[in-house]
């Protein structure tokens, strides 16, 4: 049975002068433990889709179900990591990573120790009493991941978590996140611009077209790549073939967009 199910979800933003349809007729289902990536051009509604799944935004059409129950407020089993880290600058790292526990009234010793363990796993135990401004971009991103994982969500929504990082840090974090999530048996949706990242990390890749955002195609990543760490997967011979395939589909989307604009 699917953990997450979207049925013809659509989102239209209204303003005084216009109505923008950001998403239209999005239907998908994701099983527990699956890693899904969403690729698509800028402005096609990826962040909007994550906000809807996170329960922060009620879609103007369709429905979102988690375990067959409709979601209309932030679900305790879903963790959302925003496009930037958004660590609270006035809180220490310790207070930042336990924020979710505090808000969910789960700040028992056991849970707090769990959060500290995660921080240790991710190699940042020594930063506990520091402030976010004293950390590098990559470190902050890792702290944000710990903050999201601390409430022990079943599913993680990651919005371009690595886009602001340098290439090397990004490759390392991909491995770290991928292994951390696998180890804890998490379901995940990753939004990214990077085709390679999508292939290396996921089981499924969803391609969105823009204006309005629709599901253009869904790819299954070959089994040979799924079992590998992202860094290894990038070296594998099946990687470039899959890359080529997705690349061509993305070209199609852009062509369609272009035709729409010119017609």
């Amino acid at each position: 049975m699917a953990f997450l199910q979207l049925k013809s979800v659509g989102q239209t933003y209204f303003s005084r002068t216009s109505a923008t349809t950001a998403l239209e007729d999005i239907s998908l289902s994701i099983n527990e433990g699956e890693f899904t990536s969403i690729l698509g051009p800028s402005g096609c509604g990826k962040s909007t889709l994550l906000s809807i799944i996170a329960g922060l935004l009620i879609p103007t059409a369709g429905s979102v179900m988690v375990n067959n129950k409709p979601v209309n407020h932030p679900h305790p089993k879903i963790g959302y990591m925003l496009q930037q880290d958004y660590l609270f600058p006035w809180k220490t790292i310790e207070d930042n990573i336990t924020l979710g526990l505090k808000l969910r009234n789960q700040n028992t010793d056991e849970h707090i120790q769990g959060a500290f363990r995660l921080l240790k796993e991710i190699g940042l135990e020594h930063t506990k009493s520091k402030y976010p401004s004293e950390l590098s971009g990559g470190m902050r991103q890792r702290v944000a991941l710990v903050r999201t994982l601390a409430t022990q969500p079943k599913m993680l929504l990651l919005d371009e978590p690595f886009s602001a990082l340098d290439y090397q840090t990004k490759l390392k974090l991909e491995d770290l996140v991928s292994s951390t999530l696998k180890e804890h048996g998490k379901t995940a949706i990753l939004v990214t611009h990077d085709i390679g990242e999508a292939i290396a990390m996921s089981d499924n890749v969803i391609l969105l077209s823009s204006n309005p955002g629709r599901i253009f195609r869904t790819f299954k990543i070959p089994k040979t790549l799924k079992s590998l760490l992202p860094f290894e997967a990038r070296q594998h011979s099946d990687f470039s073939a899959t890359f080529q395939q997705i690349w061509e589909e993305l070209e199609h989307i852009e062509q369609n967009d272009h035709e729409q604009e010119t017609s």
Partner: protein
Amino acid sequence: MSKMITNKKHLEFLLAIKKEKRNIRIVQLLIFLSFFSMWEISSIQGWINPLLFSSPSKIWSLFLEKASDGSLYIHVAFTLGETVLGFILGTLFGTLLAALLWWSPFLSKVLDPYLVVLNAMPKVALGPILIVAIGPNFGSIIAMGVLISVIITTLVVYTAFQNVDENYVKVVRSFGGDKKQCFKEVILPACFPSIISSLKVNVGLSWVGVIVGEFLVSKQGLGYMIIYGFQVFNFTLVLMSLLIIAVMATLMYQGVEYLESKLIKHHS
């Protein structure tokens, strides 16, 4: 070798900073001394009217006299107390009102024109009305100190509330936080710098409010001393009160700056 050169350059750099700082202090002191000595000399020589402008030495001896008979402390304590109370209450009410406006966008839209009008109005003009309403006492002086700072605080803090990055609120909401928690965890702490800076403005405003209040009703305080000195043509008393106010207001401002450095170390 090159490290030694860098070290030497660094030392020279530090020395240059130190020297500049010392020069600034010297010039500041010079201005201070020459101002007061010019004042003194002009007064003795009769270049300025000593009855109107008094002189530093007369002010100082009056200060010593008033200080030794203890009457000065009562006046200073009275005014200082009113001002501190006025500015704390003004900031507090202003922030509370801002919170209310943030809580209810509808209310904020309704109240918007009224706030603009109230802000533009010279609050001290309300003095007589306050006295009639509250009575010619301590209460109406405090009310004056509060009134003069509360609206501007509301406007400044509310604008700061609105400018908080919406994504921090999203983080709290994604953890199931409600509106109250959003306010407590994000909006309020994110705006501490703005609240403190309105505190700084309010130090000055509250002094205005309280002194004007004392002009109107009081039998005590520095404002009363100014008005009294004016009525009996004792300008030494007026100027002494002014100097004391200047010192007090500066100390209070520095206190707020100290608070600022303690409270908002990590807001960036």
